[in-house]
């Protein structure tokens, strides 16, 4: 029994982090993914907010799944998600005001992020709380990792720094996290602008596909055993 559950959790983690990654494979929530990843700090802030909303909404949806009438489940899910987003938004407004301002409209827009409603509908509304919360955690982490990778690439190319403005998210001590990797006289504006996000995203997806096909090529091929019959053709000489 425990073996089965642990393999189930393993499968959930594998799905969320790699095989069915919301950013790279399902391509959900592209709008915040592409819009706010101009720096690592913004990416981390939005990733954490999405993660928090995803875990709590998955848990809540799974908790009330037996009492929700099937016909009106979507409005109820949206209501739950909106409530959590409002909580996160108020919290960020109170504690990380600078980041709250730089994320702008994309923070309330988490409500419409398809990853969250998708997981609520596809997984949380059919599974017990424990698995549903774990699924939310893994999907959220997968999404956040993609945000972070994009943020690192775009901030490096655009400004040559890492963790610029981390103090907005993590408090004053984090100002020392800022690393200036290299210095240019002129910024590479494209990396900071939305088209740069599309280019970087395309390259990341290509890299993931390349890794997948390399793994697939390395695996020993399962050959279907077929019964071989000797064909005797008397005409052929």
């Amino acid at each position: 029994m425990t073996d089965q559950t642990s393999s189930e959790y393993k499968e959930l983690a594998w799905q969320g982090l790699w095989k069915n990654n919301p950013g790279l494979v399902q391509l959900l929530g592209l709008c915040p993914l592409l819009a706010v990843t101009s720096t690592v700090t913004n990416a981390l802030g939005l990733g954490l907010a999405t993660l928090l909303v995803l875990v709590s909404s998955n848990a809540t949806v799974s908790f009330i799944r037996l009492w929700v009438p099937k016909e009106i489940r979507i409005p109820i899910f949206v209501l739950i998600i909106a409530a959590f987003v409002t909580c996160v938004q108020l919290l960020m407004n109170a504690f990380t005001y600078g980041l709250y301002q730089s994320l702008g409209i994309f923070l309330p827009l988490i409500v419409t992020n398809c990853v969250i409603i998708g997981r609520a509908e596809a997984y949380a509304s059919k599974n017990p709380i424990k698995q549903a919360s774990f699924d939310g955690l893994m999907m959220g982490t997968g999404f956040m990792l993609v945000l972070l990778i994009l943020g690192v690439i775009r901030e490096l190319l655009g400004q040559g720094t890492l963790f610029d403005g981390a103090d907005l998210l993590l408090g004053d001590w984090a100002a020392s996290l800022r690393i200036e990797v290299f210095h240019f006289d002129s910024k590479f504006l494209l990396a900071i602008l939305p088209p740069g996000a599309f280019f970087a995203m395309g390259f990341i997806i290509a890299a993931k596909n390349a890794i997948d096909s390399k793994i697939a090529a390395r695996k020993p091929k399962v050959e279907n055993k077929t019964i071989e019959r000797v064909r005797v053709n008397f005409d052929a000489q």
Partner: protein
Amino acid sequence: MAFFIASSPHEHNRSKTSALMRLVIMATIPGIFAQWYFFGWGNLIHIGIAITCALITEFIVLSLRNKPLNKYLLDGSAILTAILLGISIPALAPWWITVIGSIFAILVVKQLYGGLGHNAFNPAMAAYVLLLVSFPVQMTNWQPPLSLLPIDLDFNNALSTIFTGFTLEGYSVEQLRTHIDGFTMATPLDTLKTNLTLGLTLDEIHRAMPMVFGENFALGWEWVNAGFLLGGVFLLIKRAIHWSIPVSFLGSMLIFSFIAYSFNPDLNPPTMFHWLAGGTMLGAFFILTDPVTCATSVKGRLIFGALAGFLVILIRNIGGYPDAIAFSVLLCNMAAPLIDQYTIPRAYGQGTSKNTEELK
């Protein structure tokens, strides 16, 4: 007696990609000569850098894709892309601008889409837009023609400016562009755009900075455009390009600039200025006519060129950027498949789509 039966096509025009590319490259010579005469060695140096980078990138990507090297590397398409990019880049822009641009053009715009014949966008113009959007400062500092420069900009000076940012005597590009009266000289289109946004009228601008515009339309630029026009006519005579796109492009520029000019002559420059300033002729004969990225049928090409002309006038007169050839080329490249879909020529024996419906 045995008959050899081959499948169609039965007639070949025996033209190879490399022959066509060589012809187009030859046709750019008059325009490049005019650029050299008015703006010095800068563009030739940039063309050299661009060709080197483009060929190296092409070589690396082709070997990664396991493609036959001598067939694709030397077909001239990468060289042509590099030449068009080198022509469009400001003469004294820093060297890394060209390096980034030509690598992007070949690697992303051409090879990632599948190589020559599969690219949705014109590689040179996509790279130009990338550079213009990313490095607006470097990409807009065209120096004025040599006759207006305070110093003699010879080959060594141009080389040193491109690689270090300063001439041998230590002048920066900004200083080169400063007129004796203390204001910065830019291209005619740029001067016009900047001053129109400040609220001046065309007449006032011409009176304030007569030297930028010269005696005719746009000092230096009119001859560069005339050079590319000459090359374009050569291509038309050699039947390397079809007349439809240049004619409809220039015609639609004529119509729309005439409408704008008659609507408000104080703010909208006349047609001749539009034709002879910026990259109009280069775009009309060398870039829009790229057989891979333009529409295919004659009717489609007429629409394609007219749309491009309309967009150029629209962006030059109303938009934020001084010149618009690259932007309108990219927008039209995007529109080309749609135009193709609506202008499929009727095959012989097939009715029009309406008739076919009735027949069913």
